[in-house]
């Protein structure tokens, strides 16, 4: 139970300190620390990342969602293909999905050229991959549960009854 609470809080904000989490959950700080360590050791907690609104930054950052179709042969599994693709640092997420295509892959790069080149030179040539469809991300409105955009929309009165 406390595991779930700790996970939910970290999902909400991975920068909550163990002291803050302890205050919010009524656990001892040492218990929070131990729980986090256990979750990390068990491979449940895999990392802590920032949610970035790249559009709000001057630097260009290009992202694409790529649909991949594959044909399996007797020696190759989805897992084998996934393992190969996941190694590329350009690939930020990779999922096997049901429906019209097999893998749903997210790719990031500094320019459209870089991303296109990566897909045509590294991904498309993988023998089992029969088709790639690339969708460039134009604007992102929500990432990891967090709405992006202007943000500061608290229009409440500063003192109210």
């Amino acid at each position, binding site marked *: 139970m406390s595991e779930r609470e700790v996970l939910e809080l970290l999902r909400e904000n991975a920068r909550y300190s163990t002291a803050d989490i302890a205050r919010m959950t009524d656990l001892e700080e040492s218990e929070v620390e131990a729980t986090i360590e256990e979750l990390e050791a068990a491979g449940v907690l895999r990392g802590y990342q920032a949610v970035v609104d790249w559009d709000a930054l001057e630097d260009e950052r290009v992202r694409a969602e790529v649909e991949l179709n594959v044909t399996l042969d007797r020696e190759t599994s989805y897992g084998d293909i996934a393992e190969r693709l996941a190694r590329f640092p350009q690939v930020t997420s990779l999922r096997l999905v049901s429906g019209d295509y097999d893998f749903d892959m997210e790719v990031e790069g500094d320019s459209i050229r870089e991303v296109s080149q990566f897909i045509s030179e590294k991904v498309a040539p993988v023998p089992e991959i029969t088709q790639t469809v690339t969708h460039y991300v134009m604007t992102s409105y929500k990432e990891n549960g967090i709405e992006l955009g202007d943000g500061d929309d608290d229009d409440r009165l*500063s*003192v109210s009854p």
Partner: protein
Amino acid sequence: MTLEPAQRVQAVPPSGIRRFFEIAEERDDVISLGVGEPDFSTPWAARDAAIHSLEQGRTSYTANRGMRELREAIAGYVADRFDLAYDPDEEIIVTAGASEAVDLAFRAFVDPGDTVAIAQPSYISYEPGVIFAGGEPLPVPTREADDFRLTVEALERAGAADADALVLCYPNNPTGAVMPAEDLAPIADFAREHDLTVFSDEIYAELTYEGEHTSIATFEGMRERTVVFNGFSKAYAMTGLRLGYALAPADAITAMNRVHQYGMLSAPTTAQYAALEALDSCDDDVEEMVGQYDRRRQFVLSRFEEIGMPCFEAKGAFYVFPEVPAGWTAEEFAEELLYEQGVAVVPGDVFGESGTGHLRVSYATGLGDLREALSRIEAFLEERV
């Protein structure tokens, strides 16, 4: 002056929070913990229902008492959540906020000269409401030593035995105090014994973090003498939609409706559609918001403890009520804190004399801001206390 306000209007001083509001509004770096409303948006499903109703052109008056469907939904909800059984046809009235319900009840039941006991510290509208109705407010101070819960001793001490009515608000604004069933039972006995009408403002009922909310109307012999107020502002984050309701026996609702039908005609129609959807499908949203408030509550209570401004354990609403350090009045402390650190809180005396020496601190604000505000208060204490 040609437009000379009536005496009962002049008898009510300007609201004490007004001044703080004005100071706080002058600056743009203020973190406000002075807010008495949720920082969440109305659940999307409820907003969508409001929009849809507008698209359908549903902009006429509804029945004076509110849409039948909504009254039925309210009856189902209060029965389910609080064990309150009221007939949607005769015992429920939908109002423009709980505020209107409170006002209607005072105007319908308070005769000129009637004494209305008010458990204090309390939400700021009760006293003026009683005065506008021609009645006389009788403050019943509660004490921190009792965790700001109302006791029979407090009622007796204040002379409430001779009053005509009693106003309760638990979970309480501003203290965050709650009244579990075992604390309410003697109050119910007292009300019956002294034949008091009870006005019970339960708008924060959903925001009860430990145990279950109990309504005084559920005690034996209390339903007949109690008007329960509730609304959508707090639990459903719908303050601006202005929707509330009152529950009471048929004759009482008829009397309140007599005032309402001339003064208001009917509560906002768009808001009634939003409320219907809120009751229908927004349980999860409420649960999520209540969970967040609870975490913030624990955070804030524990931080105040750490920085040396302890407060009793508030278990409801979204306020804590710490004591100001010795040597300060709440007003001075709040004012200096606002000027020096840009943190707005409300001095407790605004909510009645028994709030003297306390601050109302709202945690209807994101944790990031709460964390920063508490650090600033800590810095203020280190420098000035």
